C-alpha cells in the first residue's frame, strides 16, 4: 500500500502520568554580565555615561566654553546653582506652570476626543481644528493671549495648552479609532455608550497611543514653557527655568545655560523612567499590549 509505505512504523507508547510529579521550577542560569544587562537602570546608566563622556570630550576638543562648555564645566555650574537653591527655586516655578498647563491640555484633549468619537461631525471638527491650529506657532496666540489672560502665567498656560492639546488629542483619537470592533461591540453589549464607552473601553484599549500622546505632549510642554517664559515677559523675580536660561545666556554664562538645560534633561529622565515607565509597566505591559 503506497500510502503507508513511506511511514516509519514504531510501537505505541502509553505512560503513566502521575499527577503528583513535583514540577521543579527550572531557571536557566545567567552570567554576571547577563544579569546586569537585564537591569534597565544599568543599561540606561551606561548609555548616559557614554553620552556624558562624548559631551565632555567634544566640549574640550572644541575649546569654546562660551559656546559649548564641556560636561564637567556644566556640572560645576549646575552644582553651584543647585547648592545655592537657585535652580531648585526656578524649577519649582516652571514645574507649577507646566503641570497646570499640561493637566489642562489633557483635560481639553479628553473633551475634544470624546466629542469627536461621538459623531461624524465631531470627528471632522477635531480633524479640522487640529490640522488648522496645530501648526500655528506660539506668536500666533500672542495677541489673543494678551487680551484674554494678560501677562504672566495665564498666557504661558494658554500657550502651553496649545502645545500640548493637539498632540495628545491626535494620538488619543487615532488610538480610539484603532480599537478593535470586537471590543467596541463588547462594550456596547454591556449597555455602555458615549462617555461610558470612552471611559471603560476606549481609553484602556487605546492606552498605548494615549501614553505616547502624553509623552510627546510632556516634551512639547517643556519646550514651549522655556520659550514662552522668554516671549511672555516674566515679571522679573518670578521667573522659572526658562528665565534662568535666558538670563544666563544674556550674560554669556554658557555653563549655567547648559546647567538649566541639564535640569530639563534630568527632569525628562526622571519623568520617563519614574512616571511613564511605571505606568507602562503597570498597564500596557501587564495587559500584554506592549511587546
Amino acid at each position, binding site marked *: 500500500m503506497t500510502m503507508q509505505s513511506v511511514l516509519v512504523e514504531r510501537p505505541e507508547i502509553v505512560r503513566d502520568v502521575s499527577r503528583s510529579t513535583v514540577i521543579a521550577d527550572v531557571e536557566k542560569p545567567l552570567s554576571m554580565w547577563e544579569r546586569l544587562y537585564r537591569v534597565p537602570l544599568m543599561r540606561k546608566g551606561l548609555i548616559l555615561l557614554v553620552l556624558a563622556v562624548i559631551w565632555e570630550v567634544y566640549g574640550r576638543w572644541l575649546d569654546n566654553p562660551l559656546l559649548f562648555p564641556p560636561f564637567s564645566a556644566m556640572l560645576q555650574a549646575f552644582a553651584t546653582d543647585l547648592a545655592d537653591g537657585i535652580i531648585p527655586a526656578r524649577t519649582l516655578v516652571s514645574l507649577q506652570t507646566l503641570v497646570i498647563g499640561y493637566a489642562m491640555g489633557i483635560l481639553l484633549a479628553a473633551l475634544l476626543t470624546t466629542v469627536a468619537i461621538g459623531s461624524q461631525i465631531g470627528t471632522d471638527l477635531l480633524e479640522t481644528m487640529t490640522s488648522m491650529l496645530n501648526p500655528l506657532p506660539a506668536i500666533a496666540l500672542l495677541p489673543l493671549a494678551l487680551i484674554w489672560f494678560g501677562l504672566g502665567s495665564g498666557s504661558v498656560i494658554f500657550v502651553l495648552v496649545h502645545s500640548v492639546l493637539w498632540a495628545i488629542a491626535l494620538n488619543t483619537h487615532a488610538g480610539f479609532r484603532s480599537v478593535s470592533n470586537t471590543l467596541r461591540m463588547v462594550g456596547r453589549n454591556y449597555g455602555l455608550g458615549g462617555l461610558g464607552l470612552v471611559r471603560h473601553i476606549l481609553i484602556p484599549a487605546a492606552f498605548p497611543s494615549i501614553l505616547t500622546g502624553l509623552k510627546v505632549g510632556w516634551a512639547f510642554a517643556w519646550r514651549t514653557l522655556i520659550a514662552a517664559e*522668554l516671549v511672555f515677559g516674566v515679571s522679573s523675580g518670578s521667573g522659572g527655568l526658562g528665565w534662568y536660561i535666558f538670563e544666563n545666556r544674556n550674560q554669556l554664562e554658557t555653563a549655567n545655560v547648559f546647567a538649566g538645560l541639564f535640569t530639563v534633561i534630568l527632569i525628562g529622565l526622571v519623568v520617563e523612567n519614574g512616571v511613564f515607565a511605571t505606568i507602562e509597566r503597570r498597564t500596557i505591559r501587564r495587559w500584554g499590549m506592549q511587546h
Partner: protein
Amino acid sequence: SGTLPTGPARAEAPEVHISKGYGILYLPMIVMEHEKLLEKQAKAAGLGDVKVGWLELDGGNIINDAMISGNLDIAAIGVPGFLTLWSKVKGNAKLEVSALAGLSATSLYLNTNNPNIKSLKDFTAKDKIALPGIKTSLSAVVLQMAVAKEFGDDNYAKLDPMTVGLPHPEAYTALVSGKTEVNSHLGSPPYSFMELESPQVHRVMNSVDVLGNISLDLVYAPKRFIDANPKLTAAFLAALEEADKLIADEPAQAATIYVQSAKAKLSADEVQRMITDPDTKFSTTPNGVMQFANFMGRVGSIKNKPSSWQDLFIANVHSLPGS
C-alpha cells in the same frame, strides 16, 4: 599681529559676513548694503571684488552666538550686548572682540497711557513697563541707568519688577489699544513716535534728556578678523563714514533707500522725519559708551571694565572725539 604672509592673490578675506539689525537704527548699514559701499571701498583699497554677505539678525544673543561660533565677521549690536561679550572674552586670544565704530544714537521714550504717571517716581507695582527683554536688553539697561540717576545707584533696579518682556510692536499695540495690563513702554522710533500720536498716550521720559545723546548701537568684529584684514576693516570704516555722510547730506534719499530695502509700509517722508530728528544721530564716533561701561561695571553686570573707550575700539578710531 598682522604678520600674516601677504601674497598678492589672497591678501585678505575674499568674503565677509555682516549682520545688521531690523529698524531705523541700522540705517547706515542698510545704506551701505544698498549702495554697495563696502564693495566700492574694498576695491578702492586694492582688495578686488570682495563678496559681502548681509544677514538680518534680531537680538543680541543670537548675534553674539553667531560671532563666537565664527559665522560672522562684522555685526551691529546694542552697546550693552557688546560690553557683555567684550568683558567675557577679554584675555581669550581666540575669541576677543573689538568695536569698530559707533553706529547710531537716538532717543528712547518712556511712554504710558496711565494719566497718573508724570515721572519715574509715579510708577507703582500695578504698572507694567514693556521692554524687548527685561534686565539685560538695551532698553532695560537704559531704563536702569535713568532710574539710577533718579533714585541713586543703589536703587537702579527699582523699576525692574514692573518691567515685562515684550517686543516693540506688541508693546505699541498694547499701549495704544489699552486692552491689556501693559500701560507703559520704553520704546525706540518709530514705535515711540507713533505711540504719541494716540491721544491716550503721553511721554514720561526721554532718554536723551536724562543720559544725553549717547550711542545705542555700535559695530564690532572679532580681533582675529581685524588683525587678519586690516585693509578690509579700514574699508568698512570708510564705507560706514560714507553711509553716514549720505544720510546727513541726503536724508530724503536715505529715507527712500530705507523704505525700499526694508519694504516698509511707512512713507519716505515719515522716515525722513525720523532720521532728521535732532535726537537721532548716525556717526562712527562713539558717544557715551563709557556711561554704559561704568554703569554696568558698577552694578556688576560686567567683570572686566574698560579704563577708557579706546580700550573697546580699534586703533583706527582712537583719534575721534569719542566718549
